[in-house]
């Protein structure tokens, strides 16, 4: 079977056309047909055997990939100096990957990260297929067993024909990236709000760039790659990009809108476009062009209350309530014993804030004030900071455990077959003590639950231009930017007593001339009668 017919059949099976789509079909433009490689015409015992075959030809790919955050799960922030990444952070969703490796590393692009002893220098542990599979038949499981109740979720999957997958590798499509990034936080759309499975084959109305019938961009169209390092970082966002395009060939260091659209993105010199271009320095493109997120029929989690986790039904069993019915017809948990209570949102209007691009995190080492909501991450920015613009965010509101003696966030041990894992024993004291112990952090021995907030910059689900925000959605007293202060904005702001004096002057002038006119009329008729 020729490459073209194989591509066609694949495209038909997947319901997508052309490269860049859901799973990127093997490109007919490629100079290599992996289906013809003898190295790949063999039964593979496991994924690592496939990787070994890949590395035989792609001799430098391993070394390149090992520098990627997809492998290291660690990020040294160049500005704050904070060590970020899943390898250490606590978030407002499942909490932490630390102490729960096997479960969380089902989304690590490697094989076998089940405990602290994972060998990050072993290239054969890289999982090439999760990103490069074009068949849609490849999947990943937890890297260590969890409680049977949890493992059940991963059962009943068809075995993977590794040789077939290996012979059908290609550049990553949206479904490849989405297999993890659409499901962050433990389910479809849970975490980001602007990334969920509706983007596998979205309509234009959901995302103009990923539109399956239109531009059909793969993620890597913007998150351009060099040496397996991707442009675009949530930890260090290019909040303002005055450089614009880097033609020819476009810039490859950033994933900003400006890197393609330039810093005067509204074309021609019409008054409307001149005025809109005048907003670019203060307003992120996303602010107007993503009027709401979670628009594709998949809900995003907006509230997560861990404090109610662990309840059992009358039979003494864990249970769940599926009380949220999302746009695509699916039912979502509003309560589940292992995780607690949730609220969901669709077509969510973002929160707006000045954002300088630098994300600062509250780590396990930072003290917290439990009397106010703890910001798991926070950022700075203001109207007079040229590095900042007004950005849209998803605000996540959670209630999660903390060390009420030391006033720090805690690592919770959820995943595993051991006696301490919360997902199985539903015992907070044990799960927290074990989590802190495994992470090597001091624990005061007592815990409580604290309100937390987490902020996710919104940048996907770019709506068609006709759906962009109208002026008066912000330029109004009760508009979307009503909460931002410290700067004058026409239509939103007034001048207090100056305004009052002005209106009084108008009314006074009107009443004055009215009275004057009235007196003229009355006195004139009086004179006539005389």
């Amino acid at each position, binding site marked *: 079977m020729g490459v073209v017919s194989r591509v066609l059949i694949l495209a038909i099976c997947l319901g997508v056309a052309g490269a860049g789509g859901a799973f990127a079909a093997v490109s007919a433009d490629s100079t290599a047909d992996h289906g013809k490689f003898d190295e790949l015409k063999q039964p593979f015992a496991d994924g690592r055997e496939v990787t070994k075959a890949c590395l035989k030809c792609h001799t430098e790919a391993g070394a390149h990939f090992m520098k990627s955050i997809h492998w290291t799960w660690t990020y040294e922030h160049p500005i704050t100096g904070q060590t970020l990444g899943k390898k250490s952070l606590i978030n407002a969703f499942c909490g932490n990957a630390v102490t729960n490796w096997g479960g969380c590393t089902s989304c690590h692009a490697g094989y076998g990260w089940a405990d602290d002893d994972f060998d990050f220098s072993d290239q054969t542990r890289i999982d090439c297929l999760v990103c490069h599979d074009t068949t849609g038949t490849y999947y990943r499981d937890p890297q260590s067993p969890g409680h049977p109740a949890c493992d059940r979720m991963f059962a009943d999957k068809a075995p993977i024909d590794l040789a077939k997958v290996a012979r059908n590798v290609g550049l990553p499509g949206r479904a490849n990236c989405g297999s993890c990034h659409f499901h962050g936080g433990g389910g479809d759309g849970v975490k980001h709000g602007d990334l969920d499975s509706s983007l596998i084959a979205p309509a234009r109305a959901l995302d103009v760039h990923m539109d399956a019938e239109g531009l059909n961009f793969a993620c890597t169209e913007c998150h351009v790659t060099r040496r397996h390092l991707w442009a675009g970082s949530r930890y260090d966002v290019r909040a303002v990009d005055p450089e614009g395009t880097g033609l020819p060939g476009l810039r490859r260091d950033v994933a900003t809108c400006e890197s393609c659209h330039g810093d005067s993105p509204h074309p021609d010199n019409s008054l409307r476009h001149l005025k809109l271009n005048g907003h670019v320095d203060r307003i992120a493109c996303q602010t107007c062009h993503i009027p709401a997120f979670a628009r594709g029929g998949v809900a995003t989690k907006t509230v997560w209350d861990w404090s109610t986790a662990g309840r059992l039904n009358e039979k003494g069993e864990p249970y769940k309530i599926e009380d949220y019915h999302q746009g695509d017809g699916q039912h979502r948990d509003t309560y589940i014993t292992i995780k607690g209570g949730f609220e969901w949102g669709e077509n969510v209007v973002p929160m707006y804030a000045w954002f300088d691009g630098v994300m600062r995190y509250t780590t396990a080492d930072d003290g917290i004030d439990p009397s106010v909501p703890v910001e798991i991450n926070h950022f700075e920015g203001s109207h007079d900071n040229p590095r900042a613009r007004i950005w849209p965010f998803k605000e996540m509101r959670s209630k999660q455990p903390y060390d009420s003696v030391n006033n720090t966030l805690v690592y919770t041990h959820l995943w595993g077959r051991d006696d301490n894992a919360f997902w199985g024993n539903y015992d907070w004291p044990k799960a927290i003590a074990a989590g802190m112990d495994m992470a090597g952090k001091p624990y005061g021995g007592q815990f409580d639950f604290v309100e937390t907030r987490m902020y996710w910059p919104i940048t996907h689900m770019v709506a068609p231009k006709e759906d962009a925000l109208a002026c008066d959605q912000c330029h*109004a007293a009760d508009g979307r930017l009503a909460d931002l202060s410290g700067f004058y904005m026409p*239509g939103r702001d007034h001048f207090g007593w100056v305004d009052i004096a002005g209106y009084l002057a108008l009314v006074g002038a009107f009443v004055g001339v009215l009275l004057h006119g009235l007196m003229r009329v009355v006195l004139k008729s009086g004179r006539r009668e005389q």
Partner: protein
Amino acid sequence: MIGLRKRNGGNAGAPRKHDVMIYSRYERFWHWSQAGLIFVLFFTGLGLHGTHDLLDFETAATIHTYAALALIVLWVFTTFWNFTTGQWKQYLFKQGIYRVIRFYAYGILVGEPHPYKKSLQRKQNALQSLAYMTFMMAIGPALWSTGFIYLIYDLWNGYAWSSEILWLVALVHTVAAFAMGAFVIVHVYMTTTGKTPLHYVKTMITGYDRIELSEVEEAYIRETGNVEMK
């Protein structure tokens, strides 16, 4: 040119009343297009300020901008016209303003005659001149200068002080706009104080008013045809 130095009329023979065009075609065009633009600007400006909700912001901003540009062009031409025709002298300060104020505050109510007579060379009474001078030298410039600075915001918004200056510019613009609004209300009312309530409006439409001409003036007009007369 004909010089009539004495107040309220000529000195050569008994003055006679004639229908004379005292507001030339350009002057009337200026007046009415300015009136229309100011009304449009005031209405859309109030919308932009959030006073009313009758237009969406984009429409209001678009109309306001184009109307402002048109008004600026009109004022540039009119400034040119005022100086080339010498009409700017009409706006100079005149004696007798207190008598005019007294007339509008009291005399008009009791049926006194207007203390001032319109003539070919003095179209405006002292109060009018002062009011129009204020309009042209204070309110107008405050509006167009801040409006223009506002319009080119994108050229200076990169500076650290841009936010504070924008606030100040908007404040001055708003204050001046309220002053303009009050001016227009009183001005429109004042048009009803003529011989009949619509007399002044008619004059400003047709350009003709019935004024006294001295014999010399009349002879000059008949001879030269410099001023239209019925």
